[in-house]
């Protein structure tokens, strides 16, 4: 297990290095340059001297390879992701403020998805082809069909027209007021989690149907075990392995979905930070966000892989 973990962690390094090179270079290749954007803020035209000064002040006068080595050196030696080109603030500080927000939103959305998907998916499998099963499957298709940006907008707009109520736009940090924070995060988490729950629900149903037809389940029924024990102890544990894999694979999608949900519900997470950074071509923030997301996604997938051993005793790590 220890050796496996070490190997996986070591394998992260080339993956992240490669990802960082790709992001670092491609963001500089897309049309629209940060210098053009900065100089267009001013209503007096900048001459070449002004332009060169700004380029040098931002450290963009050096070759991209030198900039990359400087950047990666800062990370490895000092944990420094550079400074925002616009705000002149350390990127690590900006990310430190935003990461917990998106992490909380993602976690809550995941919880919402699981709370909806696992019981309904299980129920649907146990009552296959009954009215309850049809309703549950239709519900999952409905959730799949409704995009989160639409659902989010509806949740934001219509209660305000009908009842004069709307979700909070004032973000409160969890540590400042946990209850207020959770009240604000609940709706976005439900909206974000709804789409994920639909896929998870359908996979859970399929896996449960497969497991419920296995010999050892038939044996469990034959032994006269109560349904609760058969389902919870024997069936669900095995059915969960692919579901957990799916959740791991959904993690990047959750972060992508957060861009839209954070925009609609005014949640200052990494999604909004990334959106602003892309619009402003703030290269250090963009590369910093992608690096953090890359690390998060690979670690989540590592955790998923490790969870197989817990869920399925047949799995051994070598």
């Amino acid at each position, binding site marked *: 297990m220890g050796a496996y973990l070490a190997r996986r962690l070591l394998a992260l390094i080339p993956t992240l290095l490669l990802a960082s090179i790709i992001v670092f270079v491609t963001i500089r290749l897309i049309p629209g340059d940060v210098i053009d954007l900065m100089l267009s803020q001013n209503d007096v*035209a900048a001459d070449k001297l*002004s332009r060169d000064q700004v380029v040098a002040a931002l450290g963009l006068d050096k070759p991209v390879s030198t900039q990359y080595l400087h950047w990666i050196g800062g990370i490895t030696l000092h944990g420094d992701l550079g400074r925002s080109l616009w705000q*002149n603030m350390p990127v690590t500080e900006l990310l430190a403020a935003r990461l917990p927000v998106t992490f909380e939103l993602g976690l809550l959305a995941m919880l919402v998805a699981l709370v909806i998907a696992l019981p309904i998916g299980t129920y649907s499998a146990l009552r296959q082809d009954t009215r309850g099963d049809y309703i549950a499957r239709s519900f999952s298709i409905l959730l799949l069909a409704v995009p989160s940006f639409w659902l989010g907008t509806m949740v934001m707009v219509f209660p305000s027209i009908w009842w004069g109520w709307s979700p909070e736009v*004032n973000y409160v940090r969890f540590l400042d007021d946990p209850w207020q924070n959770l009240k604000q995060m609940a709706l976005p988490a439900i909206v974000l989690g709804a789409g994920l729950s639909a896929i998870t629900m359908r996979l859970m149903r399929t896996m449960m149907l497969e497991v419920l037809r296995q010999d050892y389940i038939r044996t469990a029924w034959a032994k006269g075990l109560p349904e609760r024990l058969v389902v919870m102890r024997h069936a669900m544990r095995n059915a969960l392995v692919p579901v957990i894999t799916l959740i791991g694979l959904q993690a990047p999608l959750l972060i992508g979905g957060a861009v839209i949900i954070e925009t609609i519900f005014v949640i200052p997470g990494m999604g909004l930070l990334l959106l602003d950074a892309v619009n402003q071509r703030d290269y250090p923030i963009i590369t910093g966000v992608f690096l953090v997301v890359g690390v998060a996604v690979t670690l989540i997938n590592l955790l998923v892989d490790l969870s197989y051993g817990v869920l399925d005793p047949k799995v051994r790590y070598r």
Partner: protein
Amino acid sequence: MNKPGIRRRDAARLLAASGVLPLLVRAQNARPEVPKYGGKLEIGTIYVTLSALSWDPADWNWKINHDGGMYEQLFAADLSKSKRNGGKHTYYADAWIPADAIKGELAESWRWVDPLRLEIKLRAGVMFPEKPGVMKARELVADDVVFAFNRLWASPKKTVAYFDHVKKVSAIDKSTVVFEFNEFNAEWDYRFGYGYYSGIVPKEVADAGASNWKNTNGTGPFALTDHVSGNSNTYARNPNYWDKETINGTEYKLPFLDQIIYRTIKDEATYITALRTAKLDMLETIRWQHVAELKKSAPALQWERSLAMAGTYLAMRVDVKPFDDVRVRRAMNLAINKEEIIKAYYGGNAEMFAFPQHPDYGAYYEPLSGMPDSVKELFTYNPQKAKKLLAEAGYPNGFAFKAQFSPVAVDHIDLMPLLVAYLEQVGVKMEVQAMEYPAFLSAMTTRTNAPGYLMNNGHTNPLTTLRKNFVPGQVWNPSQWNDPAFSKKVDQMYAERDEPKRQALAREMIREIVDKAPYVWLPTQYLYRAWWPWVKNYGGEVRAGAVRPWPIYARIWIDQELKKKMGFA
């Protein structure tokens, strides 16, 4: 849904439906109101979608002047001359204070000692408040102004030409600053007196790191106490602020409010919703499409509208064929039915002619009715004449060209197909390219934009609008207009000390440039602002300097009693 919300809503609707609410508001407005201190104001500003881009004027970013409620400048707008107070000024312009409406903010008085030497006497007793870890409380002195200017001038992010006209800034005593000029520039007051980067940042803040919001500290009416990027800026009252306001003959110390919160909300549906449910006390930018519904669902809102401070046009590159021929450019104008666009597309919420000069710009502006016939003609719809002009220019069967636009200007998504359809009627095929905004902007700044370029462009002020649009080398010149004679006139205008003469020159240049049609001149739309009736001493003013609202906000007070009566306390 929560019951307090339902009760609030019911109370407000009941009041509105019964006719009591208007009476209540009118009664409140009719009797002399006594301002009250305290409360907080939550604002969706005119830049509601945009978080702070910088906290340091030396970054040369325009938005610091909008967000920096803690920094003051030499000059500001005299709000006693606003329309609300019986004056003539709307205070809506981007970065222009009319000459008769400039008042000293940190400057108590100023005089020209000679044609190139300006002496400014600073207000006495203006204090920088104490900021733990950054600076002790102390009085503002002339050296602070000199320091702020020199720091701006030494910034590696500066635009070199911006202060070409300034030779030297120095302090001759504790309260007197002298500006020595190389030449007269008619924008001298705007560029440093009330411009985008003119906030007086003390040395202590610069030493502590002015780009970090936690270090900001100035003499302004509010101090920044929290900043959640992408969500909010929170400002608290500066208890030692120097300015006062006289209301009904009584003098009041400013500011009235304890707290101001700027909300940053990117999604349009969300900020409209926040206004509707009074999570915003005021919203400074509302597109006309939302007005009818808001008036129905939140009937108590107070309203004001203004023509946008940005012109909409389809620029045509005059350095490439076929747009190098004025007949083609005029034909393009005649082919578009602008009257129909105003009626059918904007629902009447637009005007024919508010760019390149804005009707709010006083004598710099000349209405279309006073223009020569050849200019008036460009605003009529005459496809037959358009075809004739195209044929004369050698394009009897029309031509094809590429045009770029950015969907970030939501209206343009609908406007562009309309233009395509109109142009097709005269045989001109416009191939449309939608671009992400930074790429779109970069195309213009690097002068690689397509022959057609649909955009909104702010006026800034009555002089800048002529320079930045029609002088070669300027960033905001998408038609690549390059006429040495015209550029010379722009220089003359900047060098002219006498304002009526300057205004006459500007009017003459507007006639000339509109007639030469480097752009398809499109209608300018109205934008709305709305606020709840408990927001007092406010009439829809937006800017009292270069995108700077703080003197306006310092004068607003909240009628908490009315807010409570309406069920929103």
